[in-house]
């Protein structure tokens, strides 16, 4: 069916459209340049903001640890119950919503694509079960490789092509989109009860260093022509003084880069930008981080903003969760995935009057405000680690309004204000920049050519927000910003109106996408045969019981690329 969005105030940075009043036309599930207006359904978007549907680069919404988190945080569920409606199913969960509620809440905020950023290959059947159950949005999964035995073996032996072929095999068979690296090497070491400090110490039994793993996987990413750079959660997360290792991580792949193309994405950098040498001397080191990012085009980052609320941390960084549990005395889940990864879960309540939490809050915002190029910094809360994704409108208001930030700054400990830079930053984002860090820039760094913009040919995923920039000033009327972005006036998914006035009016099923990097036949078959042997030696399952069949997915959407091998 044809749809005409009339007179909207359009922010479409990928096509250099900055607040122009114009019409958007939709035919079927695509944006087109002309339609038969007499037969089209018309949406009056005058005095409303029109953007492409939101794209979330990093949000833990499915997978074994998300599910364990749901079990661990029962109170998170009975305190936030969602009744069924005529169109939607019931559900629950504040920091870890059930699958259906996850989809609904994203759609209500105008989001149409979400990336789950950390799944071990062994658990991908369960991951796709859950992805199938999330309605309303397109989605994908990033696969963990940073502590995988087979990867470390190939890299140690210098078999970079074989390593690339193995990763191509996993991404294609298990249906994932990105090479995710969490605490490279250190999680394997942690399984032996040890820590690795720095990037240059060898991993027990493998004789390879974290730096070699990062560089190796970066080369692999290039060989496979993957659409997104390596997605790195580097070592020493949440440790005072860790900003040095963050810079070292970014710098260690610098000489692999060419043409200033981004080839490493550093995720939830808020947790990796700490100065000082212990919790008592914790300070913001965003000056150093932002300075490096501003000078080096091969890096992109996302915020990992924290919110003052009761939430749940969950990460493949099992060693960090162990330390957090020791620090807080909270409930704890600890897990090992054979051959591949580890994980941990600990609840946390970020409090405004807690000195450390207040510093963390300021650091996230500083990163977004000090990195000059909005195309290389993206908005996330590392949901649910920094806070539930439902707080995005609040984060947008902090970025757009110094006044909104000052309201919080006034109420955090004086010491936290002194150890951070936020008070001295005047920058305020405009809607064009907000559109970049919440959709356009993210779609671009994900290599999703049909997402994040509104030119003919793009997917008809669109958000319309009830905010009139002629009437309200986002800097002053930041509460209006929160209101408008919390409940989209309309969300359009694949050409259908799915949300109206902040309520779901049509449940739909989104696509699940993954990448298939075509490598040479010879290499592919030689890898396939050597894997049987490795599975026999290392795994409790056989290859045949490991892979995810294509018909397992409700709406499969493979994205093909041509590898260089």
């Amino acid at each position, binding site marked *: 069916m044809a749809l005409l969005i009339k007179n909207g105030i359009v922010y479409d940075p990928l096509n250099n459209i900055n607040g122009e009043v114009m019409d958007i036309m939709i035919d079927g599930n695509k944006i087109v340049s002309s339609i038969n207006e007499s037969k089209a359904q018309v949406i009056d978007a005058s005095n409303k903001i029109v953007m492409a549907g939101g794209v979330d680069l990093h949000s833990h919404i499915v997978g074994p640890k998300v599910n364990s988190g749901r079990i661990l*945080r*029962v*109170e*998170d569920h*009975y305190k936030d119950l969602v009744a069924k409606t005529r169109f939607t199913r019931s559900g629950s969960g504040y920091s870890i919503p059930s699958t259906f509620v996850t989809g609904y809440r994203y759609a209500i905020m105008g989001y149409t694509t979400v990336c789950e950023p950390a799944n071990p290959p062994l658990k991908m059947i369960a991951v796709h079960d859950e992805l199938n159950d999330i309605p309303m949005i397109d989605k994908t999964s990033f696969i963990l490789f940073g502590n995988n035995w087979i990867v470390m073996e190939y890299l140690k032996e210098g078999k970079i092509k074989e390593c690339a072929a193995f990763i191509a095999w996993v991404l294609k068979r298990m249906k994932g989109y990105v090479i995710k690296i969490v605490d490279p090497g250190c999680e394997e070491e942690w399984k032996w009860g040890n820590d690795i400090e720095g990037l240059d110490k060898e991993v027990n039994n493998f004789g390879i260093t974290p730096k070699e793993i990062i560089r190796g996987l970066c080369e692999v990413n290039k060989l496979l022509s993957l659409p997104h750079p390596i997605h790195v959660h580097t070592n020493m997360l949440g440790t005072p003084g860790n900003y040095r290792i963050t810079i070292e991580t970014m710098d260690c792949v610098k000489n692999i880069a060419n043409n200033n193309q981004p080839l490493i994405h550093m995720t939830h950098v808020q947790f990796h930008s700490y100065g000082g040498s212990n919790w008592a001397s914790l300070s913001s080191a965003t000056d150093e981080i932002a300075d490096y990012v501003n000078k080096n085009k091969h890096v992109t980052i996302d915020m990992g903003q924290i919110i003052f609320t009761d939430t749940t941390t969950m990460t493949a960084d099992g060693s960090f969760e162990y330390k957090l549990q020791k620090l807080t005395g909270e409930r704890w889940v600890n897990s090992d995935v054979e051959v591949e990864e580890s994980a941990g879960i600990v609840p946390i309540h970020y409090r405004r009057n807690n000195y450390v939490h207040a510093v963390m809050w300021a650091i996230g915002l500083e990163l977004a405000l000090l990195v000059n190029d909005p195309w290389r910094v993206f908005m996330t809360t590392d949901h649910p680690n920094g806070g539930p994704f439902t707080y995005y409108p609040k984060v947008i208001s902090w970025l757009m309004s110094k006044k909104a930030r000052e309201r919080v700054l006034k109420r955090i400990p004086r010491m936290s204000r002194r150890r951070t830079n936020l008070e001295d930053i005047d920058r305020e984002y405009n809607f064009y920049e907000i559109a970049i860090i919440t959709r356009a820039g993210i779609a671009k760094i994900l290599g999703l050519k049909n997402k994040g913009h509104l030119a003919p040919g793009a997917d008809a995923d669109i958000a319309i927000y009830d905010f009139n920039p002629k009437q309200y000033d986002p800097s002053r009327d930041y509460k209006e910003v929160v209101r408008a972005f919390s409940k989209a006036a309309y969300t359009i998914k694949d050409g259908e109106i799915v949300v109206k006035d902040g309520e779901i009016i049509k449940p739909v099923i989104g696509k699940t996408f993954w990448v298939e990097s075509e490598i040479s036949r010879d290499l592919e078959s030689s890898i396939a045969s050597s894997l049987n042997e490795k599975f026999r030696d290392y795994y409790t399952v056989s290859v045949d019981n490991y892979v995810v069949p294509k018909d397992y997915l409700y709406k499969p959407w493979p994205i093909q690329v041509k590898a260089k091998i």
Partner: protein
Amino acid sequence: MAEIILTLKHSLKVPLDASIISPDNFAGKSINEISSLKLWRGNKQITLGEVFDIKGEAGSNANETVITINGDLSKARRIGKGMSNGKIVINGSAGLYLGEDIRGGVITVNGDVGSWAGVGAKGGLIEIMGNAGDFLASSYRGARSGMEGGMIIVHGNAANEVGGWMKNGTIKIMGNAGIFVGANMQGGSILVSNDCGVRAGAGMRGGRIVILGYIPSILPSFRIEEIRASVKVNGDKISGPFYLFNGDFAEGGKGNLFINVTKNPHLKRYEQYIP
């Protein structure tokens, strides 16, 4: 004091969420307004007037309101949820979560109650003339503490896990209690006037548990300290003698367990370890 009387019209076949029934919700409302209050029966929303005959009048404040409920309410849950003042008298049995999160006022049950009675209690008095189910005044799943204040009296028996994660307040069981009395207790007092099951005080980090009857055994992570002639529970002196155990040493050993000496001759062997 104004009294409002609810009488069950038909016996309940499916669970009724009765959390709306509290002096705080009724105060200042007319009979018509109270009759039209909404609540869930199974998966259907209905009005209070569909379930109960409603007579009398409500006071202008919660503290001037007495609610009397007649009938078998063992399928009605959450009666008196969060109440801050006033009184509820139930002539019959009540279901799960009676007096959940109670902050003040009095609930009297002339019958038995289901599990989780007084869960999350912060004040007030709950008096149960019959028996109580499991998890009396315990913490609910995932909550960071159990009972934080107030008094709960059970004239009959209580089942397992009385006062789990309890932080403050008093629980008195006049009959027997099941296993795990005061599990993970952090403060407050529990009195069991008769016998109780094993593992009393498991994981306790504070507070006191007093057992006047027989207990099959003491956890090995408890240590005997002395024999005391008497013990105080909420200001009342109770004569012993009592064995005083400290524990649970798996969690630091700051809790006190008082066990009646004469009713527990099988514990005599502990006396040689009194320091």
